[in-house]
């Protein structure tokens, strides 16, 4: 007696095609969001690290991590906030290595000198002091300051990005600005007098 097996010749190819289509859709959506938020990831990293090359590496790593877990992100509208947190965390991890930090600051100062050769000496000094004062701020305060100064974000936008109430953003901004002012008061007076 002969046995007949019924097979569907196109089934494997169909499954493969479905997977490929799904992958393409995820990739397309991710690239749209990356074009919109990639700069933010870079700026957050740059605000923490203050080095272009390191910030670019961190932004790339953050975007790749985000892509790996993108399929599991339920609310895609929160992608921007999610990316900011990933980028900030990676940048902080990188910053914790003291040796690399020293090298980075030396390099950053060289770049600053090159880039702002014609600008005033006092302005350079103030910017340097501001950045060093920023480094001493706690991470939460620093991130709020950076985000509010970045791309003209409002307090509401910052609160959405960080998933915290607007009141929390306001109070963090207030304390961060006061701490900076305490450290920079002596550097700004000569500039004002002039």
């Amino acid at each position, binding site marked *: 007696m002969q046995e007949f097996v019924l097979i569907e010749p196109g089934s494997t190819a169909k499954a493969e095609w479905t997977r490929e289509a799904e992958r393409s859709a995820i*990739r397309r959506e991710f690239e749209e969001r990356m074009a919109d938020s990639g700069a933010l990831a870079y*700026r957050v990293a740059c605000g923490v690290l203050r080095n272009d090359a390191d910030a*670019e590496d961190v932004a790339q790593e953050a975007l790749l991590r985000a892509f790996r877990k993108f399929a*599991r992100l339920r609310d895609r509208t929160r992608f921007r906030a999610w990316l900011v947190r990933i980028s900030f965390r990676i940048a902080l991890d990188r910053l914790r290595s003291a040796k690399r930090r020293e090298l980075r600051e030396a390099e950053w100062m060289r770049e600053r000198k090159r880039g702002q050769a014609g600008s005033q000496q006092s302005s350079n000094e103030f*910017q340097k002091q501001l950045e060093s004062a920023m480094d001493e701020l706690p991470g939460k305060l620093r991130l709020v300051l950076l985000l509010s*100064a*970045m791309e003209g974000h409002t307090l509401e936008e910052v609160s959405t990005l960080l998933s915290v109430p607007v009141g929390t953003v306001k109070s963090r901004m207030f304390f961060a600005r*006061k701490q900076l*002012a305490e450290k920079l008061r002596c550097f700004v007076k000569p500039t004002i007098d002039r």
Partner: protein
Amino acid sequence: MFCEAYNRSLMDAAASSELSPKLRGHLAECESCHSAFAQEQSLYAAIDTGLRAAANPEIPSTLLPRVRVALNNEPLPHASFQKWVFVSAVFAGAFVFTVIFELRHREALATTVTAETPALPSPRLNELHPSALAAENSIQQSKKAEATRPIPTGAAAPLTAEVLVPNEERAAFEKFLAREKAPSANSSAAVLLVPEAPKELGPLPAVEIASLKVLPLNGGEDGQGEF
């Protein structure tokens, strides 16, 4: 300098950029507070300018193309998830297998009742003097006799109890047993003598050295041997 009464509130107002009507009125009246507040505001303005400069650097043109190239080498996110599930399942299976194997091994060890002592290695046995050899043999025999003594276990334990009674109390104990003999078939007792103290090993014979030959080290008679 701010007036003492308004110092804190004006400093906070400069930091938060929010002025109440009361403070606004005081600033209009007090020249000293007005100039100090202006200074404070210029400080915060400088900070904001510096922050904006630090927080908005130019985006390198290579960033997005670099990420796109890296994305091409990334596996499908869903596939990556499946891979982790598979790896976790393999690890869990290996762990369960190890635990079961370990439990079985312990059970097998617990049921082993034979206690054998491994033979002591004696590589230089043939080089010993006959008298030392005899002494060692006697020690090994006594050890062997002790090691091969059967160990009573729960299953093989005798049902009759053994009671050690001194010689002078033996007759009294036999009477006691005869009187107290219970009807129970499971229990009985046998009277045994107290064993004598084990004999001590005799003194070992002195080792005899047949001959002793003194040879110089290599290198002749100058006393400088080779090391």
